[in-house]
């Protein structure tokens, strides 16, 4: 099977057609990325050409910044005409900025960049487009004036996400922000983050409560999720007031508890929650907060080996331990990463195997018992490998296209 290009894949060849296409995205009620890009010095022709050719124009580029081995992304177009450089910038825990700090970042962007900021990358890092010729100088400005640094790319410790936690949330069961700060400055983690020595990327996420706003359960090699032991705490007096005020329907609250752990005693006007059945779904808490709050005995549940991008498809995190503080887990993190690297030397783990793949290869039980020297406290649930895609033949493709056009007709009506 060989593909024959009808037209050469160059920006020049496709840009005019693409710029016409882009006009479509400047209209419409939602703020347009195209309008924003046009306000900057971003080389929008490359994007336009990609859209027209229906193929990305970008290929891996290269840049050299002295003593910086991770944290920037260099790109060039396939025809070699345009190059781009992005800095991934470490965000403060919680991504909460005073305007004073944000102004410094904006100044930085205008001085060294294209006037374009990507507020949050897929991992939450801030991405700033930089003029390649001043990149070296820019690193120092970022360090000395703004007080942060280029972040992480490649096979190393990546941006570590923490939910807003105690800075602006009532539910937070531990200080996720401090935990992230401490994690990043842990001597081993700090040593690892400047180089790309791992088989693949490493991520950790800190969620303050079972809502898991950082999605630690699936998107982190180590996920730390705040939880409490037993039942939520009910302030019966405050709860009765909420019931009398008509804010909460206690019967409905009990009926809708996903764990089936709640009963409402209508005679005594008391709400009872069976702590042994409570699955920490937060249903009652968010319905009747602050009359119902998380329990007092607070813990952190650690799930390990979750990821999206990995050789054998995505995985949900597996249960590792329930601890009192993140410090207790640091040795396990270090042991896991070291063992992951050792197994690459042995050839068991291949390049682009995530920790989840590594655990799959050695076996979860063996990982917990022998590598970490612990006893399992939970059993991982099974699920099919998380992946998207299909290899279809022309008949099947036609079948799905026909199905989709029927839905188009249903939703938009028949095209005139």
């Amino acid at each position, binding site marked *: 099977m*060989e*593909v024959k290009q009808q037209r050469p894949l160059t920006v020049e060849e496709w840009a005019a057609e693409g710029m016409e296409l882009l006009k*479509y*995205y400047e209209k419409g009620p939602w*703020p347009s*990325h195209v309008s924003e890009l046009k*306000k900057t010095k971003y080389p929008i022709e490359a994007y336009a050409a990609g859209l027209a050719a229906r193929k*990305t124009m*970008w290929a*891996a580029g290269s840049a050299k910044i002295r*003593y910086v081995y991770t944290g920037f992304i260099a790109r060039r177009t396939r025809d070699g005409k345009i190059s*781009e450089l992005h800095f991934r910038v470490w*965000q403060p*825990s*919680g*991504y*909460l*900025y005073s305007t004073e*700090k944000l102004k410094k970042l*904006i100044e930085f962007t*205008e001085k060294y960049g294209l006037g*374009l*900021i*990507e*507020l949050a990358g897929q991992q939450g890092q801030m991405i700033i487009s930089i003029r390649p010729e001043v990149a070296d100088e820019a690193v120092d400005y970022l360090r000395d004036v703004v007080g942060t*640094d280029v972040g992480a790319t490649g096979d190393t410790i990546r941006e570590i996400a923490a939910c807003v936690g*105690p*800075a*602006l949330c*009532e539910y937070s069961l531990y200080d996720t922000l401090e935990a992230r*700060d401490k994690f*990043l400055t842990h001597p081993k983690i700090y040593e690892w983050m400047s180089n790309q020595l791992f088989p693949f990327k490493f991520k950790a996420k800190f969620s303050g409560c*079972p809502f898991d706003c950082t*999605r630690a*359960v*699936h998107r982190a090699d180590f996920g730390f999720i705040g*939880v409490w032991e037993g039942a939520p705490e009910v302030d019966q007096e405050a709860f009765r007031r909420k019931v009398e005020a008509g804010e909460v329907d206690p019967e409905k609250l009990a009926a809708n508890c996903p764990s089936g752990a709640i009963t409402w005693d209508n005679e005594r006007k008391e709400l009872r929650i069976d702590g042994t059945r409570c699955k*920490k779904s*937060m249903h009652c808490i968010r319905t009747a*907060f602050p009359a119902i709050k998380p329990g007092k005995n607070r813990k952190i*549940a650690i*799930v390990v080996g979750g990821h999206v*991008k990995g050789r054998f498809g995505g995985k*949900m995190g597996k*249960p590792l331990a*329930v601890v009192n503080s993140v410090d207790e887990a640091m040795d396990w993190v270090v042991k896991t990463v070291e063992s992951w690297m050792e197994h690459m030397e042995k050839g068991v783990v291949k390049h*682009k195997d995530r920790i989840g793949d590594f655990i799959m290869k050695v076996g979860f039980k063996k990982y917990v018992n022998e590598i970490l020297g612990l006893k399992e406290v939970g059993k991982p*649930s099974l699920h099919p490998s*998380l*992946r*998207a*895609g*299909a*290899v*279809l033949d022309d008949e099947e493709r036609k079948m799905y*296209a026909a199905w*989709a056009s*029927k*839905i188009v007709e249903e*939703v938009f009506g028949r095209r005139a």
Partner: protein
Amino acid sequence: MTADKVAERLKKKLPVPYTEWLPEKVRRNVGKWVDRKYHGYGIIEHISATGDRIFTVKVGTPPNFRLSTDTLKKFVDIADTLGIGGIKITRNGNLEILTDSLDKALKIKEEVEKMGFPVGGWGPTLWSINSCTAFLTCTTAVVDAPSITKVLYDHLKPYFTGEVKLPAKLRINVSGCPSACGGFTTDINIVGHYGDAPTYDPERIKLCLPKSAKALEMGHVPEVAEVCPTGAIRVFGKPDGTVGLEVIRPKCIACGRCRDVCDWIDFDQSKAGVAILIGGKASNTGRGPLPSIQVIPWIPAIPPDYREIVAVVKKIIDLWRENAREGERIGDWMARVGLEQFYKMLNIPVTKWNKPVTLTGEFGFRQFGPI
């Protein structure tokens, strides 16, 4: 500049402690929040034990969260004049402006709406559409996620602002390729893919292969073949001593790992489309965290209006709105009614790529048993 100073870069300068980055009023109240109230779908009030109150206004941003400094400066201005000098960026790229009274919060809402930016995204609404960079930066994208996101947002804006109510929270993710940078924990995941096994440029593929077949005899497997999870890429020595490559179609799962490591693995772009996975969530509400499931393996992705994608997404949301109970996210609804029932409602053709599955077991920390 001295060499020592440059070498210092080996030690990353981290933005720690985080408290240095906080606006003063937030710093004073860290860990002291006791209650919250919602004012519509875009304003949330946090009440501190100290009596301080902070109102947060949540603003939707353009696809892929890219802002010009011009626009960001305007937001900073608003945060200074009407707010307490603080902006929070969410993991999904929404921008939150902090202030200290409801009046000011409403004024902020008015100002950003004047700029053309919507306010909303809390409670039973569309929280955000997470888009990867695709053709803006990425080397492996198959379809362009930001333009798909823009079109979806244009159609779904009333769900973000709360003008049209949803049964529960909705998150959508658009990824340009099967690496699925947005993850599989959103309610609706749209993932671009080849729809076919990869092909390759016969000349340039040599750049990803060893020069001579001797290297293969020594046991060296080139990365482009080694990275394949199903062994669908075979490399072999040709009689003339060069190396050949073959894609074994029945084994291929179109994951694109080979393309991640070799630019010259290619595909027929006329066959590119998107798969739709639904039901993923990370939160412990309802049935707890759920992995999403591929229900539609392929539909075409045709710019500029991507009608097929928009129609299918709208149809799924409509069905969910009609059939789900209050508070039920798509995954919870699906778990209750069963995937087969969902297939019937939509009349989706089934191939080996989207066979209905039943998830057994619970995920997240529910795997520990009772805590």
